């Protein structure tokens, strides 16, 4: 395969997937193992968390003394598997709706850039909608992290479906006008057969790329929600009358780890940097896959600049 971009992206993603599945069995510490404040007689020092990276803790520990590597591996299943699952659901449902609308629907008319009052609602960002829905049930919840993560996944999937459906519909309309669809119709093919055998195969590549891009968007939403203290799997909030409230992620999901440590760029920087690097690396992996696929598919059709 002469496509280094695609290969790099796939390697990163598959390595992370393997780490998610098998990492917890190989890591030196467990996710619930805590480094407590203790006196080390041999070195004559008091050891207190957070421990810096290196030595016994390869990526250091967080403020509470949990091993960063262990909690990253613990949270990885949420970051990695859930983002893919949400993207898959969005593309599946949105794709079916888009194909149906693309086959039966009418082409949108109207001038480009026209102002309709509905577009005002663009001013309310998507993650704020998700935030409003989740904020009531995410703070100090009684249900399990997995259940709450599932609820968030449903919300994020539903929010994303309309845009996926619109994209697929647009592509489907273009294909619908092609000669071979017309001939299939003349031969008496049913609408379902036309969608399945003619329209879907010609936009298959776009759907795959869309899926990868949706996964990146979902990860972005996880992160934006985490900045506002809505962590995947729920948030534990400690209120103190004299201090700002403290928010802790229940599931150790990566963007949650970023969100809870977002002020750590002065001291103990690794507590913020480690999850941030993991998160960025995962996004970059997906991005490279998407670019690589685009390169692979577009080589056939693309025209080139005249200048």
């Amino acid at each position, binding site marked *: 395969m002469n496509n280094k971009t695609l290969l790099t992206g796939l390697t990163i993603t598959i390595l992370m997937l393997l780490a998610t599945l098998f990492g917890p069995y190989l890591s030196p510490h467990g996710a619930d193992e805590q480094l407590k404040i203790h006196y080390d007689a041999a070195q004559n020092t008091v050891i207190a968390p957070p421990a810096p990276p290196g030595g016994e803790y390869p990526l250091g520990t967080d403020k509470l003394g949990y091993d960063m590597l262990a909690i990253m591996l613990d949270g990885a299943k949420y970051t990695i598997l859930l983002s893919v699952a949400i993207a898959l659901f969005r593309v599946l449902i949105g794709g079916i709706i888009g194909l149906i609308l693309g086959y039966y629907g009418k082409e949108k008319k109207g001038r*480009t850039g026209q102002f309709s*009052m509905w577009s005002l609602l663009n001013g309310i960002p998507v993650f704020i909608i998700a935030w409003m829905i989740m*904020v009531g049930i995410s703070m100090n919840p009684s249900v399990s992290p997995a259940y709450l993560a599932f609820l968030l996944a449903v919300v994020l999937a539903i929010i994303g479906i309309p845009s996926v459906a619109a994209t697929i519909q647009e592509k489907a309309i273009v294909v619908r006008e092609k000669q071979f669809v017309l001939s299939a119709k003349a031969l008496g093919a049913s609408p379902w057969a036309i969608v399945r055998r003619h329209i879907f195969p010609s936009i298959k590549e776009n759907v795959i790329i869309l899926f990868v891009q949706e996964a990146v968007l979902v990860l972005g939403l996880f992160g934006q929600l985490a900045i506002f203290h809505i962590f995947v799997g729920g948030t534990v909030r400690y209120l103190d009358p004299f201090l700002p409230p403290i928010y802790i992620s229940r599931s150790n999901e990566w963007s949650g780890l970023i969100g809870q440590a977002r002020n750590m760029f002065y001291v103990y920087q690794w507590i913020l940097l480690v999850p941030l690097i993991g998160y960025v690396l995962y996004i970059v992996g997906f991005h490279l896959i998407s670019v690589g696929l685009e390169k692979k598919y577009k080589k056939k059709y693309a025209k*080139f*600049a005249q200048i």
Partner: protein
Amino acid sequence: MPKAIQLTLIVPAILLFVFLFAMFPIVLQADQQWHWNEGFSSIRDYFAGIGSGESFRYLAGKTELSFWEQIGANFKTTLFYVSIGSAAGTLIGLLLGVYFGVSRREGLKRFVELTSVLPDFVVIILLQFLIVFIYSKTDWLVFEVASTSRDDPAIGLPLISAIIIPANYMLRNVAMHMGHTLSEDYISYAKARGLGKTYIVFFHALPNVLPYVKADLHKFMGIMFGNLFIFEYLYNISGLSMMVFNNAFADEGYQYSLVVNGVVALLVLYLIVYAWQRLLLYGIEKVFAR
């Protein structure tokens, strides 16, 4: 339906959406039950409170404040960042996009594309990290990392982030359409007529790219408004979104009326910035299209 009726119907519809939207945290609570009654009674309370002014007071921590007194300064701060960010972002993005559409520097293009997939908060945190890193190495504080108080706001770094995130989106969009436009036949025709490269790019290709930019304006604005929340929060800027969503949960719980007022103010801001963007694009069109 005539246009006037459509318009008069759509404003209440949008307000209804805002009322329902602000109801979510009341209806969905930690006990996993639907609280529809409480939700609708909060709408009732809102209308009842308009006359007495109760709907325009909110709690910030434990202090009660008047919405009308606070909104002015916060609105102005946000408007400042958004209007400069959108205008500078559009201009920089447009020019760089033209450059990227024409140039063949693939490495640079790939780098820019990579930075554009990173979510806005990652970009901001990395910028803050960079400032701290430079300071720790050289003792030179390039910008303030975040505002410490309203009297001593950090301006440099927030302004940079307010510009580069929309600029990055605009750049990608323009570069992509520029690439498509340059592959058209009328470009090779213009070339055959012996017109200069710069002339073709700016007077033949760019005017055909601008409609796409205009059509994409709402998406562009959506990205900017999403970014607004993140960057006001991370830089601790007391703007509109901070005022609303930082105080949404005060001492006595969720403040329905504050969120409704704040979201309406946000939509007004959207209208203003949209008009401002259209004006800017109109100006750009006057320069390049004939």
